[in-house]
């Protein structure tokens, strides 16, 4: 059974159609990344998969169960979200922030159990956050903060994790670190990851599968190397793109219109 099934969903905001009849299925242990130009509907799509938006048509199911039949709590036990612009509640400690991921497990009227605390500890350990546990969340650097948000999502112990532009604002090394961390979680825990990424090179290197979205519709869907090398990509972004092989990795390079580029 697919872990996430998106069936013919359309999402509207007022008169505008943000997503139109999208059907996709995501398998356990795979990383899929949604790519596409600004305004393509990437964030809308992942927010719908995370249950934060209701589609006007169609349905999203996680492990065979429709999101609309679940309470907020039941949903939080099945899908976790790393938002694009996480709110950082200053004054809260890193430990307390990461432990918010366990709320769906112990409920709003009970304290965290020993088991809950053990999960938080192990995630802090895996993401090298132990030394920050007592720090005020507002004092972390960008990279530490993103790691902390990821930690909160992993603490939810869900099979499906949705990442919405998880590396925005990070420097190159922290971008790679963050994605490597997530990649190892996918391998070790058999997670299903659905992400959005702007960086096509990183998208191509980290995802098993790429879904190209444009104006709310799926234009291309396939293994990362195939999608990255497709002519359709340049057309949809409306620009010149070259794909260069660097030590076996596909690197997507934008090229200025009209310039003569040698060796591409």
């Amino acid at each position, binding site marked *: 059974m697919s872990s996430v099934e998106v069936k013919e969903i359309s999402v509207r905001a007022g008169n505008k159609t943000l997503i139109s009849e999208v059907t996709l299925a995501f398998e356990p242990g795979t990383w899929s990344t949604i790519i596409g130009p600004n305004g393509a509907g990437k964030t809308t799509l992942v927010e719908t998969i995370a249950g934060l938006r209701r589609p006007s048509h169609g349905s999203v199911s996680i492990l065979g169960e429709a999101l609309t039949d679940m309470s907020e709590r039941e949903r939080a036990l099945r*899908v976790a979200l790393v938002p694009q612009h996480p709110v950082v509640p200053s004054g809260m400690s890193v430990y307390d922030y990461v432990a918010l991921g366990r*709320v769906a497990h112990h409920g709003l009227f009970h304290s965290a159990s020993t088991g809950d605390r053990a999960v938080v500890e192990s995630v802090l350990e895996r993401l090298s956050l132990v030394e920050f546990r007592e720090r005020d969340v*507002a004092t972390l650097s960008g990279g530490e903060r993103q790691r902390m948000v990821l930690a909160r999502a992993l603490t939810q112990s869900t099979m499906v994790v949705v990442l919405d532009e998880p590396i925005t604002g990070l420097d190159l090394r922290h971008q790679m670190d963050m994605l490597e961390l997530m990649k190892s979680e996918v391998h070790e825990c058999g997670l299903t990851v659905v992400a959005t990424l702007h960086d096509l090179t990183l998208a191509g290197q980290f995802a098993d599968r790429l879904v190209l979205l444009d104006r709310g519709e799926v234009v291309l869907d396939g293994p990362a190397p195939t999608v990255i090398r497709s002519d359709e990509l340049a057309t949809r972004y409306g620009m010149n793109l070259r794909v260069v092989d660097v030590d076996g990795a596909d690197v997507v390079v934008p090229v200025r219109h009209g310039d003569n580029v040698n060796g591409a």
Partner: protein
Amino acid sequence: MGIVAVGTVIALAAAIICGLVIGPTSIPTWRVVGDIFAHVGIGHDTLTSTQSTVVWTLRAPRMVIGLLAGSMLAVAGGSYQGVFRNPLADPYLLGVASGAGLGATFAIIDISHGNVTPTWTPLLAFVGALGAVTVTWLIGGRSMRANTATLILAGVAVASLLTSAQTFLLQQSSAESITLVYLWLLGTLSNAGWSTVWLVMPYVIVCIIICVGAGRALDVMSVGEEESRSLGVPVRRVRFVVIAASSLGTAAIVSAVGLIGFVGIIVPHIVRLLVGTSYRRILPISVVFGAAFLVFADTIARTVIAPSELPLGVVTALVGAPVFVIILSLRRPVAV
């Protein structure tokens, strides 16, 4: 945290004793304390019958209504600050004050015309307060796309409308009613008897329990609506329940003692500066601290210019503002 909790409980005990001991009739503290113990079955009565009347019929109900008002306003203010993620939120944010004010004005003007009895003032104030919040909620809180900003703006609109209606009524009425309405607006515990206590207590206790119980949900909600939903919190339901409980409790208090300002905003902030940003700590401590604070303030209000009284709302601000400023300058900046 432990020290703060113990400190507030001691402050509460001190406030209760001050509320019972201090007054125009001088009664030794040990006699009052002895009689308190006698009332719970330890030792014998230590007061003469006159003293007993002064303490248990005049001072005690006033002190108890002070405790209830202080804890309710403080916890409602703290809950609102959590729900709206706004440090300026106070229990009157969604129109409770203006609704109660308009209701009370109606009643007071009619009393001076001899149409109704004084018991109408709390009733109409209560109805007005709940009516105003309900209208605010219907305008700004119901639709799926509504967020806390629309609710706050709806509150501003409703409050402006009701306040202007109240101003119009006052402008049409006699100078005597204006004075009475003005006194009511400043808030006082001086009219409180045991009947008021029994009337208000059930609402206040239930509402305080609900607000304090929502502490963990409010902690999660400090990461905003979308993220708290993704963490499994039914945000809209929590918001509705907390707003309903805070408003109901505040309406009950306002109808009994008028508009006592400043407690709902200052007490949770002082507590936050002392115990940190978790509502699981802020709310219960605010209940105790708010109760102590208001009883102290009332003791000052009724003794400084005795036999006359200072308006309680004036005292809460006069005492509260400097305390707040001192703690603010000593500790880290406020974060909600």
